[in-house]
Structures are given as C-alpha cells and as structure tokens.
C-alpha cells in the first residue's frame, strides 16, 4: 500500500512539474515592413514558430525558420531570403528571454494578463536585447495563448535596405506574435 501511495505521490509531482512549461510548434509570427507611401504591402507570416514558456521562472524562448516566412509574391520572398536576411547563411532567428512580471500571472484564475518581456533576439547573425509588452491568457490552470507586438530596426541587425527600395520598404518591421500554448506534459 505504501509503495502504491509513494508511486501516486511521485507521479503527481511529476505531472505537476511538467505543467510548468507550455509550448507550441505552430506559433504565428508575422511582420509588416511597408513604408508609409508604399503602393504595395511588404508583409509575411510564419505559422511554424516554436515557443516555450516556463511559468515558474518566466523563462521564454522562440525560434523561427527564416525560409518559412510566406509572402504574397514569390519575388518578395526570394529578395527577403537572398538579399536581406540571407537565410542560407542565417537560417534561424530566435529569442531567449524572460517574462519579467511572471509572478503576476495567476494560473488558478482564468484571464488575460499583461506581461513585460525582456531578452536577446538573434536575427541575421546579430544578437540584440529587446523588450516588448504583450499578454498571456490563462484558462483551466494552463497558459493557453500569448500575444505581443513590437518593432525592430533593420539597422540594429545589420540588414541593409538599398536606397532604391526605401519608398516601399520601411526601415523598421512591426512584429506580431500570436501563439496558442499547450502543456509540455501533454506530449
């Protein structure tokens, strides 16, 4: 009987510890770099971002494949990969950081919690500290989704914008992150 009880306690502890991490492999990360007077939209979406968040420590990670950004036009996508982000040389972008106010996220109370995120973003081989605001949504004792919008300057990541396209392409990109999380223990 004692052994069974011990096993139950052990399994419960295991399950509980597994529930501290939430992840997705289907995160949406989109960007819009359309210049103010551009006649066409310069935007793309990647629906295969990986992300994980640890509710205990607030640690958070994102990773995207650069070639998995889809543009409306093939030519734009080719220019993006070959001329700007050089996907062959730098195939991935990632973010490693922390939700600095993770203690304010209460898993036992369903809701949408505003969060602050700080960490290092690596893009085009350059790592730079970024901060962003966003929200985490909790439901039924889990983090079910996360959203954020922030801007990055291309020059911060050594991405050169030729003068000939500055009327179409802005010098910064508005990044939008929209992910639905599931507990790691469920996998």
């Amino acid at each position, binding site marked *: 009987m004692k052994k069974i009880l011990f096993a139950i306690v052990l399994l419960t502890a295991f399950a509980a510890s597994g529930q501290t*991490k939430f*992840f997705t*492999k*289907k995160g949406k990360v989109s960007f819009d770099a359309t210049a103010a007077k551009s006649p066409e939209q310069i935007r793309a979406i990647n*629906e*295969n971002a*990986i*992300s*994980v968040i*640890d509710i205990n420590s607030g*640690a958070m*990670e*994102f*990773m*995207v*494949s*650069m*070639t*998995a950004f*889809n543009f*409306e*036009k*093939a*030519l734009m*996508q080719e220019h993006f*990969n070959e001329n700007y982000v050089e*996907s*062959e040389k730098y*195939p*991935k972008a*990632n973010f*490693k950081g922390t939700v600095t106010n993770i203690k304010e996220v209460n898993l036992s109370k369903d809701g949408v919690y505003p969060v602050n995120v700080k960490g290092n973003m690596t893009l085009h081989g350059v790592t730079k500290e970024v901060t962003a605001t966003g929200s985490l949504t909790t439901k039924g004792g889990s983090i079910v989704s996360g959203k954020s919008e922030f801007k990055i300057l291309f020059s911060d990541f050594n991405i050169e914008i030729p003068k000939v396209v500055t009327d179409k392409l802005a010098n910064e990109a508005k990044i939008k992150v929209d992910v639905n999380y599931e507990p*790691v223990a469920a996998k």
Partner: protein
Amino acid sequence: MSRTAIIILVVLAAIIAGVLYGIREFTRTRESTSEIEAVAAFQADSLAIKFEENDSMATVEFGGKVLQVEGVIEEATNDNGVIRVRLRGSDMSGIMCQFEPGDTAIANKYIPGATVCLKGQCNAYQKVEMLPGGDLLLSNCVLTEYKK
C-alpha cells in the same frame, strides 16, 4: 523598311519584352511543390538523424530545397485549414510537414500510424534549449504516395 525603322522596332520589342517580363516576375506566385523535382529522397528517421547530428551542415546542404520523405504519421492536425503532419523520426526528432494551402480535401487521409511519402521544402531544424529534441520543418508539402 529603312534601317532606322528596324532599329526602332527592335528597341520597342525589347522594351515590351522587358515590361512583360517585369510584370510576370512581379506578379509571380510560388511554384507548387508538386511541380518541383525533389533533390533527394529519405526515410523520415534517417533525415531526422542527419539534422540531429549536424543541423548546420545539413541545412547548408538541403535548406530551401525540395526533399522527398517517407515515414509514419505520428500526429496530424488541421488548424483552420492549415494541415500539418508530423512524421516519426528518431527518438529525439521528427519531421514536421506543413501542407500547401487547399489540401484540406485529403486531410482525412492523414491518420496517425499511416505510412506516407511526401515532398516539401526543407527549412531549418527547429529546436529550443528549454525542450529536448526538435523537428525538421518541411513547408509547402504535397502528398506523393499514400502507402497505408
């Protein structure tokens, strides 16, 4: 016809050809993967191991190229029309395949346990430090053979 007229005609033809080429390039959409020949064919487990062992080298070799992969479906999902199938790879890695839009009609075929052969554009080996293992991402996949 005078020499000047011929020159004008040739220049005009060149301009028109250039404009047409420009319009075609500007409005070109991505070519379907079904129209592209795969550069290599793999079993899902051997492809997963190749990226697991040295993803930088494997990405240089296959990144952006179309690969054919055969494997057993571990998980199949339809998220508002976005069809994804994860093929069983090694103990630590799998092959995540996102299908071309509009492939929802055959989504019901993607049943866990079934063996399929598909083609897709090779992206990067996706992993994060906070989780063990990772997945090679293939995008714009098309089914080439449904085995069982």
